[in-house]
């Protein structure tokens, strides 16, 4: 067969003698609107193959079309767009913009900027920053930061607390945070504006000084100004929703929302139910603590045989209430009574708690510069400038050079200049060529140094700080990792039923696991008694009676005051300390039809 092979959606459909003309024809018709704009055509000269794709699932990207080195997009278009007379669709239909897939892209010669375009070029990028994803493009000056920091900034933008939905008061999200005084950032990007993140911001513009502070901001820690915190810096509210449903069980029984009566199995005591109304549901604006009941609920017994004597159907119900998490506290914000999709009665209770920034809370700028609050310092102890300005946050200078977050420095400098000048915002869109000289001029005009440095005075002693300190304005985000939701310690507490070892996890008031590697370190040090304390005494120690004659676990009959072996009836039994896990192992071996014997011996 002669000519180039032509593939439609990957299938060979024929051959063509003039492949270049074919492809150009297809494109011309597409731009004219005669063919759908989803169609892409490409000619691979080296293989002499034409690919025409119309199927779903191809990643495509928009580009401005160039014809003979001139944009098809004209001033007229722009004016009409501004006047809202035309939209994106019209540009697409007119062939002013078009979407290319990865194969047609191989035939294109794309200029990054309009001024770079030559007659050879076929397309111009809509904007060079489109090479970034939505999130990365929302961070300011990503083109001035090192790439790992851009990645980290993108990850942290998603953890920032702000106003996540404008109807948050009506929603019953399982967990949510809302910031009290969010601000639009001074350093903004076009992308953030387009996706609407400036309408629901997640952060605040603060005054940032980059200097050490008595060691309390080492290792990326941050110093917070106490007065700023009290004025509402980083203040958020945390909402958690608790849910309960009146479930139906086979046999016609169902759960019941009610105030549990004291005779119920597992009654928590009057104290726990003090906020409940007649219907067993808590009232709004109650101040609740960990373990308090939010929704009183009783469930039918697990086994049907438990029906009382004299064939009375009076069942013994069990307590199954929903309680506030043990480590949390707050106020009941909203109570909703409704119906589940199953038709059962459904109750949702939203509890609100105020989260004021404290030591250990995580903050970050939009440059992958995250840190934890190391100290909250009273305003009168904070350093101050000649004008009497104290910073809201002090960041350690060691955080900058090795990470190469030049964008961070630019944001501080630019935001400072722009806020002095009284301008709306600073354009920080990627690849939008920052006017650095203009910023410098602005700073000088308002009597500041062009490099953003200022003389600061020690807030405690009043002495002048020898080095000039870089100080300016920066957008900071409070991230969702709050210490108050993570702090955990235990001395005594609940154990697992099966092994009698401490439970795991904060929600279960668990212990901190002394794992295999930790065990190895104690063996390595030869600290045998310490190891025994960690693994046995502070864990699942039990004293079991062992028959000295046959080595089985003996019985302690406390009523008859008799200790004997159930197998050989010997009364020669000895109390032995062992781990409950080992006792369990002995029992499990018996279940495997293996009879373990414990041979006793005097300790030498």
């Amino acid at each position, binding site marked *: 067969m002669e000519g180039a092979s032509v593939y439609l959606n990957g299938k060979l459909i024929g051959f063509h003698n003039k492949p270049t003309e074919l492809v150009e024809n297809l494109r011309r018709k597409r731009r004219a609107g005669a063919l759908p704009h989803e169609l892409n055509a490409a000619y691979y000269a080296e293989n002499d193959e034409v690919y025409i794709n119309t199927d779903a699932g191809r990643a495509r990207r928009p580009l401005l079309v160039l014809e003979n080195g001139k944009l098809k997009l004209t001033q007229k278009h722009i004016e009409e767009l501004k006047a809202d007379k035309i939209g994106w669709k019209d540009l697409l239909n007119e062939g002013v913009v078009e979407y290319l897939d990865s194969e047609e892209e191989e035939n294109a010669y794309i200029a990054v900027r309009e001024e770079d375009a030559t007659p050879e070029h076929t397309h111009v990028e809509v904007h060079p920053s489109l090479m970034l994803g939505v999130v990365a493009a929302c961070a300011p000056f990503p083109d001035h930061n090192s790439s790992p920091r851009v990645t980290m900034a993108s990850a942290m933008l998603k953890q920032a607390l702000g106003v996540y939905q404008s109807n948050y008061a009506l929603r019953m999200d399982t967990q949510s945070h809302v910031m009290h005084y969010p601000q639009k950032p001074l350093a903004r990007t076009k992308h953030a504006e387009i996706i609407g993140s400036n309408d629901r911001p997640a952060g605040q513009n603060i005054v940032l000084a980059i200097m050490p502070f008595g060691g309390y901001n080492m290792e990326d820690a941050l110093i917070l100004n106490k007065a700023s915190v009290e004025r509402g810096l980083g203040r958020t509210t945390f909402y958690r929703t608790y849910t309960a449903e009146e479930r139906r069980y086979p046999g016609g029984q169902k759960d019941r929302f009610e105030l549990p009566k004291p005779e119920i199995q597992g009654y928590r005591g009057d104290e726990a139910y003090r906020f409940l109304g007649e219907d067993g549901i808590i009232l709004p604006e109650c101040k609740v603590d960990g373990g308090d009941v939010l929704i009183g609920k009783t469930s039918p017994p697990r086994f049907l045989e438990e029906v009382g004597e004299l064939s009375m159907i009076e069942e013994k119900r069990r307590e199954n209430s929903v309680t506030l998490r043990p480590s949390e506290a707050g106020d009941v914000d909203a109570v909703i009574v409704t119906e589940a999709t199953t038709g059962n009665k459904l109750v949702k209770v939203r509890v609100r708690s105020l989260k004021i920034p404290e030591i250990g809370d995580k903050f970050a700028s939009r440059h992958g510069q995250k840190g934890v609050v190391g100290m909250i310092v009273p305003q009168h102890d904070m350093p101050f400038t000649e004008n009497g300005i104290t910073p809201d946050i002090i960041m350690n200078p060691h955080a900058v050079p090795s990470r190469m977050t030049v964008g961070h420095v630019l944001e501080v400098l630019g935001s400072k200049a722009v806020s002095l000048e009284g301008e709306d915002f600073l354009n920080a869109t990627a690849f939008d060529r920052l006017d650095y000289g203009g910023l410098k001029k602005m700073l000088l005009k308002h009597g500041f140094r062009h490099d953003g440095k200022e003389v600061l005075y020690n807030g405690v002693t009043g002495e002048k700080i020898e080095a000039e300190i870089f100080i300016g304005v920066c957008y900071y985000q409070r991230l969702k990792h709050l210490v108050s939701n993570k702090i955990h310690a235990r001395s005594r507490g609940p154990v697992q039923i099966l092994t009698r070892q401490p439970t795991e996890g904060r929600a279960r008031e668990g212990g901190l696991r002394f794992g295999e590697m930790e065990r190895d370190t104690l*063996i390595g040090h*030869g*600290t045998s008694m310490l190891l*025994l304390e960690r693994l046995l005494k502070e864990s699942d120690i039990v004293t079991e009676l062992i028959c000295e004659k046959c080595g089985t676990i003996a019985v302690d009959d406390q009523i008859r005051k008799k200790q004997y072996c159930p197998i050989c009836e010997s009364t020669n039994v000895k109390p032995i300390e062992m*781990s409950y896990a080992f006792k369990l192992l002995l029992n499990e071996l018996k279940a*495997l039809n*293996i*009879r373990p014997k414990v041979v006793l011996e005097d300790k030498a």
Partner: protein
Amino acid sequence: MSDLFEKYEGKLPKKVLVELKEATKGLKSPEVKKTLERVYGEFVANKAVPGEAVGIIAAQSIGEPGTQMTMRTFHYAGVAELAVPQGLPRFIEIVDLRKEPSMPVMEIYLTDSIRKDEEKVIAFAERLENVPLSDIATVEEDFAKKRITITFNEMRLNEHGLTVEDAIKKIEKAVRRKAKEKKDNNLVFEPGFNTLRSLRKFVDRIHETKLCGVKGIRKAVVLQEHDGSGWYIKTDGSNLAAVLKMAEVEPSRVYTNHIREIEDVLGIEAARNAVLIEAKAVLDGQGLKVNPRHVMLVADVMCYDGQVRPIGRQGVSGSKSSVFARAAFEETVKHLHAASIKGQKDMLTGITENIIIGQTIPVGTGLVKLGMKQGK
């Protein structure tokens, strides 16, 4: 003088005493006494303390730097296509004691008579290389006529110092059949098989026929010795037993990285040293500073019962004396069942088993016991 040494017999290792006797020759008695005291003091000070958990410490001392090992595979400079695994993969290979290392390599030094002559060494290296028939000839099979034709490539033959006659002899010997026709470069077999399958098998046998070289050695490269005094051979593939038998080889300097082969040919002490040398080479190659005593302990554990055993389920860990310790490691139910069938006893002498039952471990402070004399 000798009574001075007698005093330390049993206190210092025999080898040390012999060395000291040699070293103190010509010294006066008080000087010898002083030396002995010093040596004994050092010896005691450097011994592991009774009850020290040497195994755990060795494991941690190798394991922690081991986390920094790279997974890179280096290529020997100058040795084409010899990609010897380094770092973690090689270390795992050593402690797992694979039947065949992924890259067996030999270093063969030759006797003084030829090692200084590059030409001779190259000639010898060519004799080492194993050449399969498929390298120097094309084999065509005609299934219809049940006939096989071998066409030699004379250039390749010459490269390996072979003649057509040699090759024919070797092939005939290997397939235990006389050729039907011999013509120039061609050799025709009509083995007289009736089934296609047996004919195929015959063809495969022809393909695999080794025309010369040592079995297992795929490639041999000549390199200059580090001090420049001569040439030695580095090979891809290892066959210690065969190489040692060759007259040109200096047997005391031959080396292979194949631990199992060393065990078979030279015995358990050599194998222990091989484990030690190979493991240390890996650690040194990664720039990790690990005290060789830790590695020695690993080598000892692998070799102490007279044969090299891998660490792990198939070896050391799977053959611990304690039932609980084995059950705690891997295949719990299998070990418990086997132990119950045999009616095994756990004497609770190890660490793992004592942790399981909740007793002090026989290490460090748990080893010390306080006794009291009765009576009087």
